[in-house]
């Protein structure tokens, strides 16, 4: 196969990606240097240099949304990694019906984040929601899940843990099942306890899987938007307004297209930093 036909095969993909991804990314970058109001759409954008970025630095709501994003991301990734790994370890040994459970665990991952947000909103309702009924069974008084600014973020975090712990579970389980049997069996023959086996054999063997899983979750949690949009719309106040939601609202509620593009640039840079390890690994492989 000649070189020329290589490029011909790549052409359709290149065209679509250029039109739908690269061009918007470029024009978003450009727009971050302009002041442009959505309500005065017909007027030309005004060049303001780095003014939008300066404004972000002094903007309290922007700082809050960065903090909310960091707290949200750190909480869900830690909880999901812990729970998912624990569960994979529990289910890794042969267990009748494992395949059936594993199948069920795929379901939350496939359900639309919008649906997750809506169903949890219903369940969190203070007076008729199922969750207050459930916590009531163990004697806890009704909680204002979505109306109390100090609890709403916890509510959002819980629903994310529900949807994405299964993802961690499936990846770690696949990693554990990929460990050569001889490795663990040899250490059992040598009289190693379960804990020794876990710390010295299993965890090191799946270290890379754990790392990649954590990064994938970090990136995804960092850009999550659709469940939160439908669960709280960032509220009450701005207590659950993650960066991507803040970006959306700046553009379509405050009508400030330039400023929202500056937020997009910040979001891109942060996610770019998070994805360096994976890109490094995968592009590095190309040399071989």
């Amino acid at each position, binding site marked *: 196969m000649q*070189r020329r036909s290589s490029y011909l*095969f790549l052409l359709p993909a290149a065209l679509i990606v250029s039109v739908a991804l690269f061009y918007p990314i470029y024009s978003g970058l450009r727009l971050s240097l302009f002041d442009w109001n959505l309500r005065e759409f017909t007027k030309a954008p005004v060049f303001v240099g780095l003014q939008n970025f300066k404004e972000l630095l002094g903007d309290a709501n922007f700082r809050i949304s960065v903090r909310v994003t960091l707290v949200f991301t750190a909480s869900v990734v830690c909880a999901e990694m812990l729970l998912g790994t624990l569960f994979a370890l529990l289910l890794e040994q042969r267990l009748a019906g494992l395949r059936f459970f594993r199948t069920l665990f795929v379901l939350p991952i496939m359900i639309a984040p919008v649906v997750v947000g809506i169903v949890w909103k219903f369940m969190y309702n203070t007076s008729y929601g199922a969750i207050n009924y459930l916590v009531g069974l163990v004697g806890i008084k009704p909680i204002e899940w979505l109306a109390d600014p100090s609890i709403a973020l916890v509510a959002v975090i819980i629903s994310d843990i529900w949807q994405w712990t299964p993802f961690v579970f499936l990846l770690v389980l696949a990693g554990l099942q990929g460990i050569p049997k001889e490795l663990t069996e040899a250490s059992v023959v040598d009289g190693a306890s379960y804990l020794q086996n876990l710390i010295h054999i299993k965890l090191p063997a799946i270290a890379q899987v754990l790392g990649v899983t954590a990064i994938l979750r970090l990136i995804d949690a960092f850009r999550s938007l659709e469940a939160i949009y439908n669960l709280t719309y960032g509220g009450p106040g701005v207590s659950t307004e993650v960066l991507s939601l803040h970006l959306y609202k700046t553009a379509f509620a405050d009508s400030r297209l330039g400023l929202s593009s500056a937020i997009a640039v910040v979001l891109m840079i942060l996610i770019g930093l998070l994805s360096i390890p994976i890109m490094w690994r995968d592009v590095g492989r190309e040399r071989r």
Partner: protein
Amino acid sequence: MTTGVKRLTLSSLRYLLVVAATLLLLFPVYIMVSTSLKFEVDAFSSPPKWLFRPTLENYVAVLGKAGFFRFFVNSVIVSLSSTAATVLVAALAAYPLARNRFSGKRAVVGATLFLRMIPPVILVVPVYVFFNSIRLTNGRLALFVIYTALNLPFNIWILRTFIMDLPYELDESAFIDGCSPFAVFAKIVLPLLAPAIAIASVFSFRLAWNEFILSLVLTNRATRTLPVAVSLYITDTGTEWGKITAIATIIAIPAFIFTFSAARSLITGLTAGAVKG
């Protein structure tokens, strides 16, 4: 004997945990589906009514009066068309990336990795501005192109991995017989890719079917898709939870179908890359 007893308690303890986790996992799904089958009065009762007289009233109301059938059709059209396009285009691109050496190859691979990471929300403003400036505001074409593009990186990557696992002798013998590269691709490689294409299709359909934020901004009253329709329905009508959960359940139907018919392929798609690399 004692070890036997110990093992038995351990495994029943594990079962207990697994069953508890499964119940937690299924609980929101159960709430969604059961509420959609309840009369509005029963939907609001606390404690939740575990036994109730089921009704399809919500589904009839939703698909009939509110015009949701149209949104359903919109979702089907956009999802199916963009899935077909993205898988075909990705297979074409994956072929030389798996088989050939050419200059710029690493840059292309790097670009696909980079594009997999971008959050769709950063596209919202530029794409909105662009389609408004060319006065193309019904949104269908925009969604088709963007969903096709957003799915390309993952699809190229997974199809490429599969092609690399196919023996090169297959291509070679066809080349020796005088086939053109395109004929080799279409007649030899593509049919062997069926399992990978199935995985790519499911994940592509999932993105297009579930996507919300771009559809929210780009579509209008007539062209909106189901996730947008359900979200706006809540804003407009408040708390008709029977109907809302009915729409939510309809949106989740493909998720049920894929999960229970193709769980193993889905797990392959989810874990590929992280585990095997």
